[in-house]
Protein backbone atom coordinates (compact mmCIF):
# COMPACT_ATOMS: atom_id res chain seq x y z
CA UNK A 1 0.00 0.00 0.00
CA UNK A 2 2.84 2.38 0.86
CA UNK A 3 4.71 1.49 -2.30
CA UNK A 4 1.69 2.26 -4.38
CA UNK A 5 1.33 5.67 -2.74
CA UNK A 6 4.98 6.49 -3.30
CA UNK A 7 4.73 5.59 -6.95
CA UNK A 8 1.97 8.13 -7.53
CA UNK A 9 3.02 11.47 -8.99
CA UNK A 10 2.63 14.43 -6.69
CA UNK A 11 -0.63 15.77 -8.13
CA UNK A 12 -2.23 12.37 -7.55
CA UNK A 13 -1.12 12.50 -3.93
CA UNK A 14 -2.67 15.91 -3.61
CA UNK A 15 -6.02 14.35 -4.29
CA UNK A 16 -6.68 15.49 -7.81
CA UNK A 17 -6.62 13.96 -11.24
CA UNK A 18 -4.93 16.45 -13.54
CA UNK A 19 -1.76 18.42 -13.13
CA UNK A 20 -1.83 21.32 -10.72
CA UNK A 21 -0.08 23.70 -13.07
CA UNK A 22 -0.45 23.36 -16.82
CA UNK A 23 1.68 25.09 -19.41
CA UNK A 24 0.12 26.63 -22.50
CA UNK A 25 1.78 26.86 -25.92
CA UNK A 26 3.64 30.01 -24.86
CA UNK A 27 4.95 28.16 -21.82
CA UNK A 28 3.16 30.64 -19.62
CA UNK A 29 1.77 29.08 -16.46
CA UNK A 30 -1.99 28.91 -16.37
CA UNK A 31 -3.83 29.58 -13.17
CA UNK A 32 -3.66 26.90 -10.53
CA UNK A 33 -6.67 24.65 -10.81
CA UNK A 34 -8.23 24.98 -7.37
CA UNK A 35 -10.49 22.01 -7.98
CA UNK A 36 -7.37 19.84 -8.03
CA UNK A 37 -6.94 20.74 -4.40
CA UNK A 38 -10.27 19.36 -3.30
CA UNK A 39 -10.07 18.14 0.28
CA UNK A 40 -9.73 14.39 0.77
CA UNK A 41 -12.88 12.58 1.84
CA UNK A 42 -13.31 12.66 5.59
CA UNK A 43 -12.03 9.42 7.12
CA UNK A 44 -14.58 7.19 8.78
CA UNK A 45 -14.45 7.71 12.54
CA UNK A 46 -12.23 5.07 14.08
CA UNK A 47 -13.73 5.60 17.47
CA UNK A 48 -15.71 8.14 19.36
CA UNK A 49 -14.61 11.70 18.79
CA UNK A 50 -11.86 12.63 21.23
CA UNK A 51 -13.73 15.40 22.94
CA UNK A 52 -17.26 15.18 24.26
CA UNK A 53 -17.63 18.80 23.27
CA UNK A 54 -17.20 18.15 19.59
CA UNK A 55 -20.43 17.55 17.68
CA UNK A 56 -20.69 14.32 15.76
CA UNK A 57 -20.82 14.34 12.00
CA UNK A 58 -23.26 11.83 10.70
CA UNK A 59 -24.29 11.53 7.06
CA UNK A 60 -27.64 10.05 8.03
CA UNK A 61 -28.50 12.96 10.22
CA UNK A 62 -32.12 14.01 9.95
CA UNK A 63 -32.58 17.10 7.88
CA UNK A 64 -35.88 18.47 9.05
CA UNK A 65 -35.80 22.21 9.52
CA UNK A 66 -35.94 21.86 13.31
CA UNK A 67 -32.93 19.54 13.18
CA UNK A 68 -31.05 21.95 10.92
CA UNK A 69 -31.64 24.84 13.26
CA UNK A 70 -30.29 22.79 16.14
CA UNK A 71 -27.15 21.62 14.33
CA UNK A 72 -24.17 22.89 16.33
CA UNK A 73 -26.23 23.92 19.36
CA UNK A 74 -25.02 23.13 22.88
CA UNK A 75 -27.53 21.51 25.21
CA UNK A 76 -27.29 21.04 28.96
CA UNK A 77 -29.30 18.09 30.30
CA UNK A 78 -30.04 18.06 34.03
CA UNK A 79 -31.57 14.70 34.91
CA UNK A 80 -30.77 11.98 37.44
CA UNK A 81 -32.10 9.11 35.29
CA UNK A 82 -29.06 8.18 33.26
CA UNK A 83 -30.94 5.58 31.17
CA UNK A 84 -33.11 8.33 29.73
CA UNK A 85 -30.26 10.76 29.38
CA UNK A 86 -28.04 8.30 27.52
CA UNK A 87 -30.73 7.60 24.92
CA UNK A 88 -31.66 11.28 24.62
CA UNK A 89 -28.00 12.35 24.36
CA UNK A 90 -27.43 9.81 21.61
CA UNK A 91 -30.38 11.21 19.63
CA UNK A 92 -29.34 14.84 20.12
CA UNK A 93 -25.73 14.07 19.13
CA UNK A 94 -27.00 12.45 15.94
CA UNK A 95 -28.57 15.81 15.12
CA UNK A 96 -25.25 17.61 15.48
CA UNK A 97 -25.73 18.92 19.00
CA UNK A 98 -23.14 18.98 21.75
CA UNK A 99 -24.52 17.66 25.02
CA UNK A 100 -23.35 18.56 28.50
CA UNK A 101 -24.68 16.51 31.34
CA UNK A 102 -25.36 16.99 35.03
CA UNK A 103 -27.02 14.36 37.21
CA UNK A 104 -28.17 16.85 39.84
CA UNK A 105 -29.30 20.44 40.09
CA UNK A 106 -26.23 21.84 41.87
CA UNK A 107 -23.91 20.31 39.27
CA UNK A 108 -26.14 21.68 36.52
CA UNK A 109 -25.90 25.23 37.87
CA UNK A 110 -22.12 24.88 38.14
CA UNK A 111 -21.74 23.48 34.61
CA UNK A 112 -23.79 26.36 33.27
CA UNK A 113 -21.51 28.93 34.88
CA UNK A 114 -18.51 27.16 33.34
CA UNK A 115 -20.09 26.87 29.88
CA UNK A 116 -21.52 30.16 28.64
CA UNK A 117 -21.97 28.52 25.22
CA UNK A 118 -25.04 26.55 26.39
CA UNK A 119 -27.98 27.42 24.12
CA UNK A 120 -30.74 25.54 25.93
CA UNK A 121 -31.33 23.50 29.10
CA UNK A 122 -33.42 20.34 29.31
CA UNK A 123 -34.52 20.02 32.93
CA UNK A 124 -35.91 16.97 34.66
CA UNK A 125 -38.66 18.10 37.03
CA UNK A 126 -38.26 15.35 39.62
CA UNK A 127 -34.81 14.99 41.11
CA UNK A 128 -33.69 14.20 44.66
CA UNK A 129 -32.24 17.11 46.68
CA UNK A 130 -32.65 20.07 44.31
CA UNK A 131 -35.66 19.49 42.06
CA UNK A 132 -36.18 21.08 38.64
CA UNK A 133 -38.02 24.11 40.03
CA UNK A 134 -35.36 24.85 42.61
CA UNK A 135 -32.58 24.39 40.05
CA UNK A 136 -34.34 26.69 37.61
CA UNK A 137 -34.78 29.37 40.29
CA UNK A 138 -31.03 29.10 41.00
CA UNK A 139 -30.28 29.51 37.28
CA UNK A 140 -32.56 32.53 36.93
CA UNK A 141 -30.94 34.22 39.91
CA UNK A 142 -27.96 34.87 37.64
CA UNK A 143 -28.91 37.73 35.31
CA UNK A 144 -26.81 36.23 32.52
CA UNK A 145 -29.32 33.40 32.32
CA UNK A 146 -32.48 35.47 32.56
CA UNK A 147 -33.43 34.61 28.98
CA UNK A 148 -31.81 31.17 28.67
CA UNK A 149 -34.43 28.66 27.49
CA UNK A 150 -35.11 26.04 30.19
CA UNK A 151 -37.40 23.28 28.91
CA UNK A 152 -38.90 20.99 31.55
CA UNK A 153 -39.27 17.27 30.90
CA UNK A 154 -41.56 15.62 33.37
CA UNK A 155 -42.80 12.06 33.86
CA UNK A 156 -45.99 12.42 35.82
CA UNK A 157 -47.50 15.84 35.99
CA UNK A 158 -49.82 16.56 38.89
CA UNK A 159 -52.33 19.41 38.68
CA UNK A 160 -50.51 22.63 39.47
CA UNK A 161 -47.03 21.28 38.63
CA UNK A 162 -46.96 23.08 35.32
CA UNK A 163 -47.88 26.39 36.91
CA UNK A 164 -45.30 26.11 39.67
CA UNK A 165 -42.59 25.28 37.13
CA UNK A 166 -43.47 28.30 35.01
CA UNK A 167 -43.47 30.39 38.18
CA UNK A 168 -39.96 29.04 38.92
CA UNK A 169 -38.80 30.26 35.52
CA UNK A 170 -39.42 27.36 33.13
CA UNK A 171 -39.65 28.39 29.47
CA UNK A 172 -41.58 25.33 28.33
CA UNK A 173 -43.00 22.11 29.69
CA UNK A 174 -43.01 18.71 27.96
CA UNK A 175 -44.49 15.49 29.41
CA UNK A 176 -42.62 12.19 29.22
CA UNK A 177 -42.47 9.90 27.36
CA UNK A 178 -40.94 12.52 25.13
CA UNK A 179 -41.65 12.39 21.41
CA UNK A 180 -38.29 13.21 19.80
CA UNK A 181 -39.71 15.17 16.87
CA UNK A 182 -41.88 17.21 19.20
CA UNK A 183 -38.90 17.86 21.46
CA UNK A 184 -36.69 18.95 18.54
CA UNK A 185 -39.43 21.22 17.27
CA UNK A 186 -39.79 22.84 20.70
CA UNK A 187 -36.03 23.15 21.16
CA UNK A 188 -35.58 24.72 17.71
CA UNK A 189 -38.29 27.26 18.57
CA UNK A 190 -36.43 28.33 21.68
CA UNK A 191 -32.91 28.22 20.26
CA UNK A 192 -33.84 30.42 17.30
CA UNK A 193 -35.61 32.84 19.62
CA UNK A 194 -39.05 32.25 18.19
CA UNK A 195 -40.27 31.12 21.58
CA UNK A 196 -42.84 28.36 22.04
CA UNK A 197 -43.69 26.64 18.76
Amino acid at each position, binding site marked *: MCDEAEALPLPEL*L*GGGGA*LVTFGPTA*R*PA*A*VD*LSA*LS*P*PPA*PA*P*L*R*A*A*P*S*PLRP*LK*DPERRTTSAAQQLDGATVLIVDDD*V*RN*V*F*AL*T*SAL*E*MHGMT*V*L*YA*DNGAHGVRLLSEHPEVDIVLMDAMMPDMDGNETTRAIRRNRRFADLPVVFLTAKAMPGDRESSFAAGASDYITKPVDLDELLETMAGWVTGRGPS
Partner: protein
Amino acid sequence: MNTARVLLVDDRKDNLLALEAIMQGLPVQTVAAHSGEEALKHLLVDDFAVILLDAQMPDMDGFETARHIKRRERTRHVPIIFLTAADRDSHLAMRGYAVGAVDYITKPFDPWVLRAKVSVFVELWAKSEQLLAQGEATRVRDNAMRAAAVAVNEALTALNSADATGGELLPGQRDRALAALDRAQRHLSI
Protein backbone atom coordinates in the same frame (compact mmCIF):
# COMPACT_ATOMS: atom_id res chain seq x y z
CA MET B 1 -0.93 13.15 23.47
CA ASN B 2 -3.83 12.37 25.81
CA THR B 3 -3.55 9.56 28.32
CA ALA B 4 -5.76 6.58 27.56
CA ARG B 5 -8.60 6.29 30.03
CA VAL B 6 -9.79 2.87 31.17
CA LEU B 7 -13.27 2.59 32.70
CA LEU B 8 -13.54 -0.05 35.46
CA VAL B 9 -17.10 -1.08 36.31
CA ASP B 10 -17.88 -3.36 39.24
CA ASP B 11 -20.41 -3.11 42.07
CA ARG B 12 -17.86 -4.44 44.57
CA LYS B 13 -15.31 -1.99 45.96
CA ASP B 14 -12.65 -4.66 46.57
CA ASN B 15 -12.92 -5.79 42.94
CA LEU B 16 -12.44 -2.21 41.76
CA LEU B 17 -9.38 -1.86 43.97
CA ALA B 18 -7.97 -5.09 42.57
CA LEU B 19 -8.57 -3.92 39.00
CA GLU B 20 -6.88 -0.60 39.74
CA ALA B 21 -3.90 -2.47 41.16
CA ILE B 22 -3.70 -4.67 38.06
CA MET B 23 -3.67 -1.59 35.82
CA GLN B 24 -0.83 0.01 37.74
CA GLY B 25 2.23 0.63 35.61
CA LEU B 26 0.24 0.73 32.38
CA PRO B 27 0.21 4.13 30.64
CA VAL B 28 -3.46 4.63 31.50
CA GLN B 29 -5.70 6.66 33.72
CA THR B 30 -8.26 4.47 35.48
CA VAL B 31 -11.77 5.66 36.28
CA ALA B 32 -13.84 3.53 38.67
CA ALA B 33 -17.63 3.15 38.48
CA HIS B 34 -19.61 1.25 41.09
CA SER B 35 -22.63 0.58 38.90
CA GLY B 36 -23.80 0.48 35.31
CA GLU B 37 -25.53 3.83 35.84
CA GLU B 38 -22.33 5.42 37.10
CA ALA B 39 -20.45 3.97 34.12
CA LEU B 40 -22.91 5.61 31.71
CA LYS B 41 -22.50 8.92 33.54
CA HIS B 42 -18.73 8.76 33.01
CA LEU B 43 -19.27 7.90 29.35
CA LEU B 44 -21.42 11.00 28.93
CA VAL B 45 -18.53 13.30 29.82
CA ASP B 46 -15.35 11.41 28.89
CA ASP B 47 -13.95 9.16 26.19
CA PHE B 48 -12.38 5.83 27.04
CA ALA B 49 -9.89 3.50 25.37
CA VAL B 50 -11.45 0.36 26.86
CA ILE B 51 -14.14 -0.64 29.38
CA LEU B 52 -13.79 -3.50 31.88
CA LEU B 53 -17.36 -4.42 32.72
CA ASP B 54 -18.59 -6.73 35.44
CA ALA B 55 -21.43 -8.81 34.01
CA GLN B 56 -23.39 -9.35 37.23
CA MET B 57 -24.40 -6.19 39.01
CA PRO B 58 -27.64 -5.27 40.82
CA ASP B 59 -30.13 -3.04 38.99
CA MET B 60 -28.40 -2.26 35.68
CA ASP B 61 -26.24 -5.30 34.93
CA GLY B 62 -23.28 -5.44 32.56
CA PHE B 63 -25.36 -6.61 29.63
CA GLU B 64 -27.81 -3.72 29.88
CA THR B 65 -24.94 -1.28 30.38
CA ALA B 66 -23.27 -2.63 27.23
CA ARG B 67 -26.50 -2.33 25.24
CA HIS B 68 -26.76 1.38 26.14
CA ILE B 69 -23.12 1.91 25.22
CA LYS B 70 -23.55 0.16 21.87
CA ARG B 71 -26.62 2.18 20.97
CA ARG B 72 -24.83 5.51 21.17
CA GLU B 73 -22.78 6.52 18.14
CA ARG B 74 -20.10 8.21 20.22
CA THR B 75 -19.48 5.19 22.46
CA ARG B 76 -20.36 2.18 20.30
CA HIS B 77 -16.75 1.66 19.18
CA VAL B 78 -15.27 1.57 22.67
CA PRO B 79 -14.07 -2.01 23.26
CA ILE B 80 -15.72 -3.79 26.20
CA ILE B 81 -14.10 -6.66 28.10
CA PHE B 82 -16.67 -8.52 30.19
CA LEU B 83 -15.63 -9.80 33.59
CA THR B 84 -17.76 -12.69 34.73
CA ALA B 85 -17.60 -15.00 37.73
CA ALA B 86 -19.70 -17.67 36.07
CA ASP B 87 -17.02 -19.75 34.44
CA ARG B 88 -19.38 -22.74 34.47
CA ASP B 89 -21.90 -20.74 32.46
CA SER B 90 -20.38 -20.35 29.05
CA HIS B 91 -23.64 -18.89 27.71
CA LEU B 92 -22.89 -15.74 29.72
CA ALA B 93 -19.86 -15.21 27.53
CA MET B 94 -22.07 -15.64 24.49
CA ARG B 95 -24.49 -13.07 25.88
CA GLY B 96 -21.52 -10.75 26.26
CA TYR B 97 -20.49 -11.21 22.64
CA ALA B 98 -24.10 -10.79 21.55
CA VAL B 99 -24.26 -7.27 23.03
CA GLY B 100 -20.97 -6.35 21.39
CA ALA B 101 -18.24 -7.22 23.88
CA VAL B 102 -14.90 -7.77 22.19
CA ASP B 103 -13.62 -10.12 24.87
CA TYR B 104 -14.48 -11.69 28.17
CA ILE B 105 -12.51 -13.02 31.07
CA THR B 106 -13.76 -15.25 33.88
CA LYS B 107 -13.07 -14.63 37.54
CA PRO B 108 -10.81 -15.55 39.19
CA PHE B 109 -8.47 -14.49 36.40
CA ASP B 110 -4.76 -14.17 35.92
CA PRO B 111 -3.96 -10.47 36.39
CA TRP B 112 -1.25 -10.65 33.73
CA VAL B 113 -3.68 -11.94 31.15
CA LEU B 114 -6.03 -9.03 31.83
CA ARG B 115 -3.13 -6.57 31.73
CA ALA B 116 -2.03 -7.96 28.37
CA LYS B 117 -5.54 -7.67 26.93
CA VAL B 118 -5.93 -4.09 28.16
CA SER B 119 -2.49 -3.19 26.76
CA VAL B 120 -3.57 -4.31 23.30
CA PHE B 121 -6.62 -2.05 23.35
CA VAL B 122 -4.67 0.87 24.77
CA GLU B 123 -2.16 0.52 21.92
CA LEU B 124 -4.99 0.41 19.38
CA TRP B 125 -6.46 3.52 20.96
CA ALA B 126 -3.12 5.33 20.78
CA LYS B 127 -2.84 4.40 17.09
CA SER B 128 -6.27 5.75 16.28
CA GLU B 129 -5.52 8.93 18.23
CA GLN B 130 -2.40 9.28 16.11
CA LEU B 131 -4.43 8.77 12.92
CA LEU B 132 -6.90 11.42 14.02
CA ALA B 133 -4.04 13.85 14.66
CA GLN B 134 -2.52 13.08 11.26
CA GLY B 135 -5.87 13.60 9.58
CA GLU B 136 -6.11 16.98 11.25
CA ALA B 137 -2.57 17.89 10.14
CA THR B 138 -3.47 16.90 6.57
CA ARG B 139 -6.51 19.13 6.65
CA VAL B 140 -4.42 22.06 7.88
CA ARG B 141 -1.85 21.48 5.13
CA ASP B 142 -4.58 21.20 2.51
CA ASN B 143 -6.04 24.53 3.58
CA ALA B 144 -2.58 26.14 3.41
CA MET B 145 -2.07 24.83 -0.14
CA ARG B 146 -5.46 26.13 -1.15
CA ALA B 147 -4.64 29.59 0.23
CA ALA B 148 -1.23 29.51 -1.48
CA ALA B 149 -2.87 28.59 -4.79
CA VAL B 150 -5.24 31.54 -4.49
CA ALA B 151 -2.27 33.86 -3.88
CA VAL B 152 -0.31 32.42 -6.82
CA ASN B 153 -3.32 32.99 -9.09
CA GLU B 154 -3.48 36.59 -7.93
CA ALA B 155 0.21 37.05 -8.75
CA LEU B 156 -0.37 35.55 -12.19
CA THR B 157 -3.23 37.92 -12.86
CA ALA B 158 -1.04 40.86 -11.92
CA LEU B 159 1.81 39.64 -14.14
CA ASN B 160 -0.53 38.95 -17.05
CA SER B 161 -1.70 42.54 -16.88
CA ALA B 162 1.50 43.40 -18.74
CA ASP B 163 -0.27 42.09 -21.87
CA ALA B 164 -2.57 45.12 -21.81
CA THR B 165 0.34 47.58 -21.58
CA GLY B 166 2.43 46.13 -24.39
CA GLY B 167 4.64 43.96 -22.22
CA GLU B 168 5.34 46.74 -19.75
CA LEU B 169 4.61 45.79 -16.11
CA LEU B 170 3.27 48.74 -14.16
CA PRO B 171 4.92 49.23 -10.74
CA GLY B 172 1.59 48.81 -8.94
CA GLN B 173 1.00 45.43 -10.63
CA ARG B 174 4.54 44.36 -9.90
CA ASP B 175 4.06 45.15 -6.20
CA ARG B 176 0.77 43.28 -6.22
CA ALA B 177 2.41 40.20 -7.72
CA LEU B 178 5.28 40.33 -5.25
CA ALA B 179 2.95 40.75 -2.29
CA ALA B 180 0.81 37.83 -3.46
CA LEU B 181 3.85 35.61 -3.93
CA ASP B 182 5.07 36.61 -0.51
CA ARG B 183 1.72 35.51 0.93
CA ALA B 184 1.90 32.23 -0.97
CA GLN B 185 5.33 31.60 0.50
CA ARG B 186 4.09 32.25 4.02
CA HIS B 187 1.14 29.91 3.53
CA LEU B 188 3.48 27.16 2.41
CA SER B 189 5.99 27.63 5.19
CA ILE B 190 3.67 26.50 8.00
